[in-house]
Every structure is written in structure tokens, then in C-alpha cells.
């Protein structure tokens, strides 16, 4: 019965004008979004590769004092993920460059949104925009009259008289609208699968992420189709059904995601970058607990080192004490930074948790979080890269400070001591791998649950609340 209804639904939908108008518009948007996304991806990828190569060349070709080299530093670039082509998430807003320099712990910088123009002011057309906003709208146009029209045309009564139940009708309509949507969206889904696979490094195609993203969107569309068909079943006219569905779209897709982001931000406000940096500077100068300032720490290190070597003055040490002292400062700065960053990270995680719970009220919020999570363009991946970059930075500066402290000749030459190409070449380069997807799943357990809860509510509604009221027909 359901199969007959869905087959008829697909046939009648495909014979209407709406799917072809929607297909035309969809393909136009997909082409524009894909082209824009691909050129932007190639540009940033190219920029990063060229800059990385330039900084590496400059780094190995220098002949410099290790500490001067530490000040010269380098830059680390967050690699573009293959799925960034589909969902850029927060990557344009959170920065993609990490500065490595002695005495400074930097945040990520150079966010594209800060450097670009109108596309960011007016909203960029991305494949994620189409997947999250346009496709649901398309489902509304395909399904708003699915059942209300049967009421208006009195075919509902004939269907009932033929022996079909309301539940069978609703399920048939739901599958019909859903499968028609999938049919229309095949090119979009092919891009979602093929494009990241083509641009990912050979042998490193994120199939699990691609598959998970596709499965999540397919489930999300099933929910939307279910909601639209259910609204159509409840409304007495197609006009009312369209109005309610469109209002639902505005509320779920446009208003609530922004409202929830605002609520999460207000509930767990982040300190400004200035306040954050001032806190770090103060804690570094006065000590984390306020009892051991920079001078006291320096004195303590001096005493400890002299005791270790059994000497009475720094001049008599067999090493360059400046190197040790600078590393001690770096260690403390790193500790201070981690302490403050942990607080901020805690706040961001609170915000994410809150958004996860709010996703229970809006599946669009949940799919947005998941989508950028799969794409590796969310806060989790940003934070993961930043953490790895900082680790690398700390090891990098440590290696230079240790060279300053223990290298033969450094004690005598102090800042005149220089190292060349053979030293810098030996320093390890920065390699970055995305975290395993299971980490993402555990971070996004709430949005996953939110989608499942919506699925359960939909099934329960269709199971126990699908009796259409003939009185109103």
C-alpha cells in the first residue's frame, strides 16, 4: 500500500512543474557554490603551500644565533580539509595561521572573513548553505500540498474508501517526497562524495567522514520531509500548509540557529582577546598564584643551576645560562597560556554543549554542528590544530633554547654564536593530521542525539498521531 502511494507520489511530483524549476535553481546554485568553493579552496591551499615553502626555505637558509632565529620564527598553516569544499564552517572566522616566535604564545590569526569583502558581509554561497537551507526549502515546495491537496480534491476520501489508512497514506507521501528530493539532489550528493575524494591526498580520502556527512544529511532530509508531510496532513488547505511550513523554515533554519548562538554566547561569554592577553601578561609577570613573579622565578632558577653545577656565579657555569633562563621563561609562559586557554576552551565547550541541548529544539542547529564537525572546520578541529601547533611551537623554541644553553661555543660567544643550514635543516618540520573521527563523534554526541530524538518524535507522531480527522475534510 505504502509502496503504491509512494510510486504514485513520485510520478505525480515528477510530472509537475515545481521539481524542474527547483532542479534548475538547485543546479544553478550548486554550480555557483561549487565553483566559488573550489576556487577559494585552491587559492587558500596554494597560498598556504607557497607560504609554507617560502618560510621553510628562509628558515633553513639562514645563518643566525638560535635565539635570533627563535625571534625570526616561522608560521604554521592549518591545512585545508577535503570536506572544507562542502562546509567551510568556522574556518573563515577562526584564522588559519599560527605564528611561532620566542616569548610569545599566539592565537590563530588571519581569518579570511577579516580580509575579504562583500561576500562575507552578505553571506557566502556555499554547498553547506544549499544543503542546510535550500534543500529543506525545496522539500517544503515538494511536500507542502502532499496531503492537504488530497483533502481539497476529495481524493483523500476515495483513498480511504479504497481501504488505505491515514498512516499508510502519510508514510507513502513521506517516502514519495523524500525519494523525489533525493532524486533531484543526486548531483549535489555526487559532488559531496566525489569532490572531497578527488582533492584529498592520495590514499588519505576521508571516506568515513564523507559517508557520515552524507548519512547525516540524508537522515536530516527525512526528518524535514516528515515534518512537512505531517504539517500538510494537519492543515485543512495547501495555502495554510505552505504558510506554516515556510514559517517553520524561517524559524528553524534562519532565526533559531542565530538566536541559539546568541543565547550560548550570552550564557558563557568569552573574554576579549585583549583581556585574555592582559591576563597572560600579568600572570607571567606576577606568577600564576601571584606569589612568584618573574624576578623570583629567575632567582630560583639561578640558585638551582648554580647548585647543580656546584658553582658560585653564572660566569663560572659550563653552559650558557641565558639559554636555560629563556627556556624556563618559555616553560612558564606555556603553563600560564595553557591555564588561561583552558578556561576559554571550557567556556567554548560550555557554549557547544548548550548548543547541543538547544539542538534538541532545532534539528538544523544539530546538522550544522555535525556538518562542520565532519568537514573538520568547527571549533573542535580548530582547537585540535591550535593545540598541535602550540606543542610544535614549544618543542621548536625549546630546541633553539637548548642549543643556546648547551652548544659548544655558545657560552663564550653568547649572542654572537651562530648556527647554519645543517642545524636548521635537522629541526623537525610540522606535520598535522586531523583527529580520528571517533573524537568528533564523542564531541558531538548531543547533536547526534538531537537528530535521533527528532527522528524518534517523528516516528512516534506518525505512529500514534497520524489519524487524519475526516470531520474536518
Amino acid at each position, binding site marked *: *500500500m505504502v509502496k*503504491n502511494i509512494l510510486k*504514485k507520489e513520485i510520478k505525480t511530483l515528477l*510530472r509537475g512543474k515545481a521539481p524542474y524549476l527547483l532542479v534548475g535553481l538547485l543546479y544553478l546554485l550548486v554550480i555557483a557554490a561549487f565553483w566559488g568553493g573550489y576556487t577559494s579552496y585552491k587559492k587558500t591551499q596554494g597560498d598556504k603551500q607557497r607560504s609554507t615553502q617560502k618560510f621553510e626555505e628562509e628558515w633553513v637558509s639562514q645563518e643566525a644565533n638560535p635565539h635570533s632565529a627563535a625571534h625570526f620564527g616561522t608560521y604554521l598553516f592549518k591545512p585545508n580539509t577535503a570536506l572544507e569544499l562542502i562546509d567551510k564552517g568556522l574556518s573563515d572566522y577562526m584564522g588559519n595561521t599560527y605564528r611561532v616566535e620566542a616569548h610569545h604564545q599566539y592565537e590563530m590569526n588571519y581569518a579570511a572573513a577579516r580580509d575579504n569583502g562583500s561576500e562575507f558581509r552578505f553571506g557566502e554561497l556555499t554547498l553547506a548553505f544549499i544543503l542546510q537551507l535550500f534543500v529543506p526549502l525545496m522539500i517544503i515546495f515538494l511536500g507542502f500540498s502532499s496531503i492537504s491537496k488530497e483533502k481539497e480534491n476529495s481524493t483523500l476520501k*476515495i483513498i480511504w*474508501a*479504497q*481501504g488505505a489508512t491515514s498512516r499508510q497514506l502519510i508514510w507513502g507521501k513521506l517516502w514519495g517526497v523524500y525519494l523525489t528530493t533525493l532524486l533531484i539532489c543526486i548531483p549535489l550528493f555526487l559532488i559531496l562524495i566525489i569532490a572531497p575524494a578527488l582533492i584529498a591526498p592520495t590514499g588519505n580520502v576521508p571516506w568515513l567522514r564523507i559517508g557520515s556527512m552524507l548519512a547525516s544529511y540524508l537522515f536530516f532530509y527525512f526528518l524535514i520531509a516528515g515534518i512537512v508531510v505531517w504539517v500538510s496532513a494537519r492543515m485543512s488547505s495547501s495555502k495554510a500548509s505552505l504558510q506554516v511550513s515556510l514559517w517553520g523554515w524561517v524559524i528553524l533554519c534562519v532565526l533559531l540557529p542565530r538566536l541559539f548562538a546568541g543565547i550560548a554566547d550570552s550564557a558563557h561569554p568569552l573574554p576579549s582577546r585583549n583581556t585574555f592577553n592582559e591576563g597572560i601578561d600579568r600572570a607571567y609577570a606576577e606568577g600564576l598564584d601571584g606569589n612568584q613573579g618573574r624576578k623570583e622565578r629567575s632567582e630560583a632558577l639561578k640558585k638551582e643551576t648554580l647548585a647543580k653545577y656546584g658553582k658560585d656565579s653564572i660566569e663560572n657555569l659550563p653552559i650558557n645560562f641565558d639559554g636555560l633562563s629563556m627556556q624556563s621563561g618559555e616553560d612558564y609562559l606555556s603553563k600560564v597560556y595553557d591555564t588561561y586557554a583552558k578556561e576559554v576552551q571550557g567556556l567554548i565547550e560550555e557554549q557547544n554543549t548548550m548548543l547541543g541541548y538547544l539542538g534538541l529544539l532545532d534539528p538544523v542547529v544539530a546538522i550544522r554542528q555535525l556538518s562542520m564537525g565532519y568537514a573538520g572546520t568547527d571549533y573542535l578541529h580548530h582547537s585540535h590544530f591550535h593545540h598541535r601547533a602550540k606543542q610544535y611551537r614549544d618543542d621548536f623554541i625549546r630546541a633553539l633554547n637548548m642549543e643556546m644553553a648547551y652548544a659548544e661555543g655558545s657560552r663564550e660567544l653568547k649572542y654572537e654564536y651562530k648556527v647554519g643550514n645543517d642545524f636548521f635543516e635537522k629541526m623537525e618540520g610540522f606535520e598535522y593530521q586531523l583527529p580520528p573521527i571517533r573524537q568528533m563523534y564523542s564531541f558531538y554526541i548531543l547533536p547526534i542525539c538531537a537528530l535521533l530524538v527528532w527522528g524518534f518524535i517523528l516516528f512516534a507522531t506518525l505512529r500514534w498521531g497520524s489519524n487524519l480527522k*475526516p470531520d474536518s*475534510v
Partner: protein
Amino acid sequence: MLQAIDLTKKYNNNIVLNKLNLNVEKGEVFCLLGQNGAGKTTTINLLLGFIQASSGEARINGESISPKKNKARKHLAYIPEVVTLYGNLSSLENLDFFSRLAGFRYSKAELETILGQVGLQPEAFHKQLGNYSKGMRQKVGIAIALAKKADAILMDEPTSGLDPKAINEFTSLVKDLGQQGKTILMASHDIFNAVEVSTRIGIMRKGNLIHSLNTMDINAPELQQLYMDTNKS
């Protein structure tokens, strides 16, 4: 046999059908006449099991009909006032779809035979229903009822909006159905057509069946007078 036994429908305290007792035998064409709000459509909705009776019972061939008992509907077919069906499907496709819903799978030739039985021309079989006249769509509605092999066909003002030629063809089709042994209950405003097509006529007013007459016993002008008097009092 189609039966209503003390069939009553109330919405809150408003009685829209009051203890209706009715038997429509096999081969009978029973026409319910009455003004808007007389309870004709409610009667049809109750007899089709679309709505739950407040009290009393509807039966078809002795089987109880209610929204919860879908099984009895296999004996029933329905033709609404406006048979729109699916405008972008052909009559063959419409008939095939509704037959499948009723659990029948016909070959194309069988479907064409059924459409032929109701007087549709073969060249129309493959045309989309959106291009059909109301009369032609009404014929497809009857074809759907025929294809279901239902014992009883319930029609809600089926001649409303049809041109005289279409009414004439429809009347002839309904008579044929009666002669084939189908039980037919039809709600109508059309007194003259009721006399022409039916074997019995009921006049309803404010949820009550006021008169039940054999068509043999009354002619159209007499029926019209009775109808006017009933609605005047």
C-alpha cells in the same frame, strides 16, 4: 445490504444526524434529498466509516462499519461531488493506482475494458485527467468503484455541476449499476434526477429522515411539492 441502525452523530451538543434507520437492499438505488445541513453527507461519511458514530451502527452485508474497522470498507466504494483525482495522471494510471490501493492488480487490457464500460472513449485513456471534462472525470470515478468490485457505492451529489448530457449518461450508468446488483446510496439536491435514477428516495431535514418513498409511487412534481413542504414546516 447497507444498513443504518439508530445511527446518530453529534458534535458537542449539536445533533447532525438523529437515529437514522435505513436499509438499502442489493440492486437498490436510494437517493437522499435534503437542503444543505440536512445530514446527507454526514450519513455518507458514517456509512463509509470515515467518522465515528456517536451512537447506533452502520453495517454493510452485516459487517459493522467504523473508522476503526477498515475491513468493512472492502465492500464499499465512494464517488465524491467533484471527482478531481490526479490531473497529471491519465485515466488508466488513475484507475490502476486506486485499484491497487483496493488490492486489485489489473492488466492494461482489463483497465481499458473497465474504462470502456463506463463510456470513456479509448482515445481518452492515455490523456491526462487535467484535460477531462467533469463528466469524464465522473466516469473515471465510477470506473474506480467498478474496479473495486464493491457491493455498495456511495455518491455525494455526483451530478452537481454536470451538463445535461453528462447527467443523462451518468443516470444511465447508475441505473446499469443497480441492475448489476450494486447497492447505491446517493445524496443529491436534484429532485428530477432522483426520480429518474433511483428506486427509493429519502427526504432529510435537520438530521432526521422525514420521508422514505418508492419512486414508483411518486412523480417529479409531487416529489418537488413534498420536498418544499418538508423544508417549509
